[in-house]
Every structure is written in structure tokens, then in C-alpha cells.
């Protein structure tokens, strides 16, 4: 027998689909920061932080990077597999440069720090490819 509120089922289904989609969209946003330091012309350390965005990011996707996806939705694994490509991509996006040099009694020391400030990236995993794009 059909209920008097015959469309409640449909409403529930629609709302659940929207909720699922919105959750899926949130899951596709990552916060990434990158920093590396060069001391006296030798690479001192390099750090790449990747984490899920806990809140929804604002902005529109900009220049995107497409990588072959063989990691089943694991961004860290994907980036570690394509580290060189991702590093070049980050360099293209733009890095902050902080350089200090000191010459004390004619002895020189220098430190260069290149930083990508924490940026929200939208990541879409498809079957074969992953699209990574910063939101600005």
C-alpha cells in the first residue's frame, strides 16, 4: 500500500545522495605544504606535509597536474611515486624564498629556504588518473 506521503522515499534518497556527494567532495581536498632548506650550497632538509582538509576550502581550481593513478586513492603514495614531477609542479606554482648570508671575518655561510605555504588542493581520483589542482 502506498503511503500518503508518497514522495518521502525519494526525498530521503535524494538527500542521502547529496550528503554522500558533499562528503566525497570534502574528501578530495587536501592541504599541502612544502619546504626545503639549503645550507652552504648543500641540501639540508626537505619536508612535504599532506593532510585532509577538515573544512571545505574556498576558491576555484587553477593550473592542474594530472598523474597516473595506481594507488587506489592514496595521495601520499601517489605523490611519493611521482615525487620529481610533483616537485617540479610545486616549483611552477611559486615558492617563497628566504635567503640569508653572513660573512664573518671573511668566512661565508648562507642559508636558503624555499617554502610553499599551506595551500588547499582539490584532488580528483579517477580510474586511471588523478587530477591535482590548487584552489585559489
Amino acid at each position, binding site marked *: 500500500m502506498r503511503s500518503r506521503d508518497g514522495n518521502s522515499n525519494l526525498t530521503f534518497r535524494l538527500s542521502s545522495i547529496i550528503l554522500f556527494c558533499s562528503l566525497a567532495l570534502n574528501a578530495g581536498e587536501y592541504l599541502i605544504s612544502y619546504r626545503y632548506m*639549503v645550507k652552504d*650550497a*648543500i*641540501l639540508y632538509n*626537505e619536508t612535504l606535509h599532506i593532510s585532509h582538509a577538515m573544512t571545505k576550502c574556498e576558491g576555484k581550481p587553477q593550473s592542474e597536474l594530472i598523474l597516473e593513478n595506481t594507488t587506489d586513492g592514496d595521495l601520499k603514495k601517489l605523490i611519493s611515486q611521482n615525487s620529481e614531477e610533483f616537485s617540479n609542479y610545486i616549483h611552477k606554482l611559486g615558492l*617563497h*624564498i628566504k635567503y640569508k648570508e653572513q660573512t664573518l*671575518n671573511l668566512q661565508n655561510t648562507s642559508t*636558503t629556504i*624555499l617554502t610553499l605555504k599551506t595551500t588547499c588542493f582539490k584532488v580528483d581520483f579517477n580510474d586511471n588518473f588523478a587530477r591535482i589542482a590548487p584552489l585559489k
Partner: protein
Amino acid sequence: MKYFILLIALLSASSLFGADQVQTVDTKVIQLTNAELQRAIAEANLAKKEATFAQIEAMQAKAALAREKADREDEAVKIAEAAEAQAQAEAEAQAEADAEAQDVLKENSTMYISVVGQGVAPMNTTSPAQAYALAKRAAIADAYRAIAEKVKGVRIDGQDLIKNMMVKRSTIRTSVKAMVRNANVVETTFKEGLCEVEMEIVISHSDFPQ
């Protein structure tokens, strides 16, 4: 009377003989004088010839000197011209460099900047590939720094501590702060542990918000 006539005759005869002898002596003198004269003339001619030769030689030497002087002058002129041309070329190069240094990024125009960064591999690397990768990363950072220096400039602070008329400590600090995007690696070379990276960037007026 007879004796007197005879005496006169004898005297006249003797005077005749004496006149002959005198004439003979005079001829010798004349001959001698002529010979000396001829010798003197010959000597004079010789001296004249020698003088002429000397004069010719002097003229030749003078001409050679003049030629040498002219050659030297030519050489000096050439050297001066070369020096002038070199100075002019240097001045032009300097002017171009000054013009480039004073080149200002105008509206609706772009500027191309190219730099070379250097990086060194650490000592404790596990493989040559790792050494290359690390050195390249360091070189890229250096190139970025060079681009930032060119585009934005360098802050320089210096401090000297002088005590008892002697420099105790001399410090120079330089720093750069900038943001660089869209720089491209053009060429990478790795030789004897040193990595060199050539990077370029094209900047336009619109990249700098007013």
C-alpha cells in the same frame, strides 16, 4: 883690349851657361809644383768624392730614418686607432650594460631573466643518483635566490668592530625575501660533485600588482 874683349866674351858665355842652369832648376820646381798640384787636385777630387759618398750615405741614412720614423708613426697611429676602437667598443659595451641595468619594465612589456645556480652534493650519499638529485635541488634553490636578487634586490647590512685601532670583527649580512613563480629549468650539468642549473623566467608588468 884683347883681354878685355875675351873677358867679356867669357863672362857672357858663363852668363849664358848660368842662365841655362837656372832655367833647368825652375823647370824642376814647376814640375814638382804641378805634380803636387795634381796630387792635391786628385786628393781634393777624392775628398770631394768621399764627401759626395758621405753625403749620399747621409741622405740614405736620413731617408731610412725618415722611413723608420714614418713607419713608427704609422704603427703608433695604428696602435692609437686600435686603442681608440677598443675604448670605443668598451664604452659602447659599458653603455649597453648601463642601459640594461637601467632597463625598466614598462607597461605591456616583458623581460627575460636568466641565472645559473650552483649546488653541491653532500658527502654521505648512498648513490651517485642521490648525490645528483640533492645537488640539483640545492642548485635550484640557489638559482631561485639569484632570480629573486635580480628582480627584487638584496638587503645588505654591515658591521665592523674596531678596538685599539684594530678590526676585531667584521660582519656582512645579506638577505633576500621574495616569491617566484613560473621559473623554468633550462639546462642542468653535473660535474665532479658540482651541479649547475640554468634557470630562466619571463616577467611582465602585470605580474607586479600596482
